[in-house]
């Protein structure tokens, strides 16, 4: 009953005009940047952080979350129509979605992507509602050793489930953690690697790093290569999938939702990996695996469901533990902190309006997206025709404004440009940016929790192995490291994931 009243309260919060408007703006911007290649939800959310100063805490989180799942919707549109994933999480959608479009079935492909996302979004909101409150009580027992165990699990996940080279991902994660140590020591406040610079004294900023690695580098790469804009000329007729389409897609959507949701909860996963695993899974259990890659509708439905469900799942560690399981959630965490709210086990009690309001708003947002996107697809297609020569200066400009406005410090722009170059080189030499950024965020927390644990135990390492929850997490982290090498099915599944990405 408590759940129902909580959710009803949440709906009451999310239906206030200001919050409803924030939700609408969020999902609209999200869809917009999801459609536009070269600017993603992470950069956009960082960009808009300063704007949220003027908003209420609840409204700003609602808007931020809306941008994230809105981008997931928008990203699939470009995958299907242009074979360019608007977001990394829509890469898999290209495989069958674009083929469907070429066969004149762009409508049903877009339709099933929207409905699949909607169903998955709905299921994941239900999941959050059911899982978050009980997890909150578990989370209250989380001390530094448990947090350290969970973060370690996150590191192993992010590196061992990466699509590309594992060793390179490990290198990037270590580099990220190392960059995270710049600034003041978390326990003793001794300056480290600051060389007398005030900008470095506060540590490298997350926003400049993200904007550099994800925004500026992408633009630089596109300027060099030249972006070919070739919008698939097809009349989109009938967005509604046929009854046959539904029959094929129903089970894949359900499986994708469940898979995405539970994978999304785990730290280090993000929304991309679930799409690959869900696609691989569907092809493996399909009676006609040869149809995949030639325009199979379930190849669109399942991964689209998975990435939306993962978005919801990722909210759980943030809301209950205050730990960001992926880069997007790290930015969302920043939005909470800007308003002086610490997400974590106490959130549900101290700020029930935020907790339930945000969850309910995700449901409202999914409905808005469905209503918004079905008629607006034509507009999004037009948007793809905006010449890149006009678009890229604007993206750069927005990145600069976003970074500068945080602290009115031009050196933050310099940091962003440096990471723009680093990101460009990483892209060219085949290193992924996601492990770096996530490790950058989690690394500071990991060092802090590790050293706090040792302070708690007066220097005895057994504190990590005598507390059941901490031990379980450490064993799980070890298992993730060892399991793929030992158990063939896991290895095989991950192998297919690798093939899919062509790495």
């Amino acid at each position, binding site marked *: 009953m408590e759940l129902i009243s909580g959710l009803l309260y949440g709906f009451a919060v999310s239906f206030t005009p200001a919050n409803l408007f924030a939700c609408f703006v969020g999902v609209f911007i999200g869809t917009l940047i999801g459609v536009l290649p070269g600017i993603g939800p992470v950069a956009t959310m960082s960009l808009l952080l*300063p*704007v949220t*100063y*003027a908003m209420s805490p609840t409204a700003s989180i609602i808007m931020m979350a809306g941008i994230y799942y809105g981008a997931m919707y928008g990203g699939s549109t470009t995958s299907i129509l242009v074979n360019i994933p608007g977001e990394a999480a829509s890469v898999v959608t290209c495989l069958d979605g674009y083929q469907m479009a070429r066969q004149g079935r762009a409508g049903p492909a877009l339709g099933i992507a929207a409905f699949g996302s909607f169903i998955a979004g709905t299921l994941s909101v239900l999941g959050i509602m059911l899982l978050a409150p009980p997890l909150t009580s578990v989370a209250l027992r989380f001390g530094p050793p448990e947090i350290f165990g969970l973060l370690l699990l996150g590191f192993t996940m992010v590196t061992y489930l990466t699509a590309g080279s594992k*060793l*390179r991902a*490990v*290198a990037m994660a*270590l*580099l990220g*953690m*190392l960059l995270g*140590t710049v600034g003041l*020591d978390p*326990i*003793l406040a*001794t300056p*480290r*690697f600051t060389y007398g610079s005030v900008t470095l004294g506060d540590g490298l900023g997350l926003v400049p790093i993200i904007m550099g690695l994800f925004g500026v580098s992408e*633009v*630089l*790469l596109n*300027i*060099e*290569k*030249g972006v070919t804009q070739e919008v698939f000329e097809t009349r989109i007729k009938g967005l509604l999938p046929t009854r046959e389409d539904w029959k094929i897609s129903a089970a894949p959507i359900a499986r994708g939702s469940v898979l995405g949701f539970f994978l999304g909860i785990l730290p280090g996963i993000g929304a991309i990996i679930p799409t690959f695993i869900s696609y691989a899974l569907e092809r493996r259990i399909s009676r006609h695996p040869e149809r995949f890659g030639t325009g199979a509708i379930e190849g669109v439905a399942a991964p689209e469901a998975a990435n939306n469900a993962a978005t919801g799942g990722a909210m759980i560690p943030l809301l209950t533990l205050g730990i960001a399981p992926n880069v997007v959630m790290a930015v969302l965490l920043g939005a909470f902190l800007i308003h002086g709210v610490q997400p974590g086990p106490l959130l549900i009690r101290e700020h029930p309006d935020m907790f339930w309001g945000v969850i309910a708003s995700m449901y409202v947002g999914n409905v808005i997206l469905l209503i918004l996107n079905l008629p607006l697809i034509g507009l999004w297609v037009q948007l793809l025709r905006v*010449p890149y*020569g*006009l678009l*890229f*200066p*604007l993206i*750069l*400009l927005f990145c*600069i*404004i976003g970074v*500068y*406005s945080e602290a*009115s410090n*031009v050196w933050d*722009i*310099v940091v962003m*440009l440096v990471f*723009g*170059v680093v990101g*460009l*080189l990483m892209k*060219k*030499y*085949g*290193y992924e940016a996601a492990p770096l950024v996530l490790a950058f965020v989690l*690394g500071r927390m990991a*060092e802090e929790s*590790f*050293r706090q644990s*040792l302070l708690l135990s007066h*220097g*005895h*390492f057994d504190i990590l192995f005598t507390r059941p929850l901490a031990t379980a997490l450490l064993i799980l982290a070890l298992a993730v490291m060892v399991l793929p090498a030992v158990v063939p099915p896991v290895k095989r599944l991950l192998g297919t994931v690798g093939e899919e990405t062509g790495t």
Partner: protein
Amino acid sequence: MRGADRVSSFVLVLFALVAVNEARKLRLGTLTNPGPGFVPLCLALALALVALLLLWRALREPATPAPPTEPGERWKPVASLIALVAYTFALEPLGFVLATAALLFFFFRVLDGQRWWIALASAVVVSALSYLIFARALHVRLPEGPWS
């Protein structure tokens, strides 16, 4: 990409070694009571190790000639970066509107090859509009320059 792999992993090794050297200057502490330098040193050493592994792997592969350079205009990102750095340091003395208009004019005219009056007009309009939207409507703090 094998020649490229050697270069990239070598750069990583170098970076890690510099980091090791810098981390050594901080107080290390002990294993059970780590000081500020403990975690950075471990991370730098681990990075050096992984980077060496990557380098070893790249060296073990037979060397292949450098891949044909992808079609692309290498001067464009370089020119953009120079413009962006210049813009960064001109931002506060010139103020947002003027500096931004100059930057956008450069992008529209030089990189995108628009006619100069189109480039100029769009640069001025976009820069003024973005100032109005961000600074006035959204209350984002932007440098005003001498005209405040």
